[in-house]
């Protein structure tokens, strides 16, 4: 099992904008380099990418959660 950690402190978003579907749903497979969410830091947005491939992504952080750098965003099998 692997974890995707937040690279930055800020606010976590599951989708590119409120009217878009989430980048990934719980249970999705993930390839290395896939965008799995956004972190908003001081009004600027940064993509969070999976560093390794995996299956069955399970999000720990909810949409719009405040998040610290190094905090887990999701588990991967």
């Amino acid at each position: 099992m692997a974890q995707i950690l937040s690279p930055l402190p800020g606010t976590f978003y599951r989708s590119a904008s409120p009217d878009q579907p989430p980048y990934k749903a719980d249970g999705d497979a993930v390839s290395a380099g896939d965008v799995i969410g956004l972190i908003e830091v001081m009004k600027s947005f940064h993509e969070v990418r999976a560093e390794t491939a995996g299956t069955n992504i399970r999000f720990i952080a909810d949409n719009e959660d405040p998040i610290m750098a190094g905090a887990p965003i999701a588990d991967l099998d």
Partner: protein
Amino acid sequence: MLKKLLVANRGEIAVRIIRAAQDLGIATVAVYSAADAGSLHVQLADEAVNIGPPAAKKSYLNVEAILKAARDTGCDSVHPGYGFLAENAAFSDAVTGAGLVFVGPSGDAIRMMGDKVSARSAAAAAGVPVVPGSAGRVEGLKAGHEVLTETGFPVMIKAAAGGGGRGIRIANSLAEFEQAFPQAEAEALAAFGDGGLYMEKVIGKARHIEVQVLADGSDAIHCYERECSLQRRRQKVWEEAPSRALSDRLREELCASAVALAKAVKYSGAGTVEYLYDDEADRFYFIEMNTRIQVEHPVTEAITGIDLVAEMLRIAGGEKLRIRQGDVSVKGHAIEVRLNAEDPAKEFAPFPGQVAELRIPGGPGVRFDSMLYQGYQVPPFYDSLLAKLIVHAETREAAIVRLIRALNELKIGGLNTTKPLFLALAADPAVRAGDVHTRWLEGWLIENAAALAG
């Protein structure tokens, strides 16, 4: 006079407003999100109320929570600061509707100035020059041709329903125009479900010059102008007053036009009328009016000696303007730089973190408006402004020398900030000569990327 003020903001502007209120003997209530419990504005206010979680829309943008805090603490007034709810007409109405005083203009005035078309019409009606273009929507190519006689080329075609730079095309010739116009129509219809277009003359190299006004609902005065041409991504980074680009004659004309607009719309409080100034044509054009106190207000305070936030509070408390136009005069030159938690060496990446060490510049002609203290943890949830360094001296040249001196005194340990940018700009010949325009900094940043990274 107001008795108890709720400050509906955070950061340096909340601190600034609390100070002005306390100087006038007005009790203060801070509001804060869970991420700001240790903030300076919370420490300095007489009382503080937690209004919700870190996300701004659940706290600083939460009208219900803010009004409840005002009621629970017995406030008679609310100051919105800048950003957040400051130019939200519904908030102004809600505050007034709750029986409180909104320190700023009425909801109707905010609405009128917040809408591009109605603001432009109001300005034109008050005799303020507007950027040549269509008075309203342009219906069809034939009508577009008529507008061209006023704008010439290059001309900007933009979607009426667009925003934030979307749906904008620029045509440099009649051939380009005839091609671009129908395309823009189709694009606007597809993107916004509304094919309506506007046209506007493109002002090539322009300076951003704005006039500070104070008004009490019937009378209005100006406090001269600020120049804010140094911008990155349309965000001002360095502001000064007065503008060295204007002749005395044009300065008086510009400032008089801002007063005429404020009077025409029966404006109340502090406001800023923004213009583009075209050096070559020696003409100015209205862009918009900001119905709030602005980040860069201290440069005006430095050269005029007027406490703008205190005057806002007096006007909101029902006083008439105390200052007559003839009493407002310019003394010396002031410059403000915005110290942001951004790393100029890394394309201005945000840099939240803890202030490990803090040395604040001082001495003659130096002002430092900030919410920083040693040990302060800069939260990642809000904008990156940490501090404003304002210097004032007899001349612009002396102000730049003083700016360098004060920047060298300043030490913010533990964070990367925009300080190196300002040291580099202060040494640049074009900045020293004041030979800049609103797109100058973007080019300079590309040319000087290596130096900033080093």
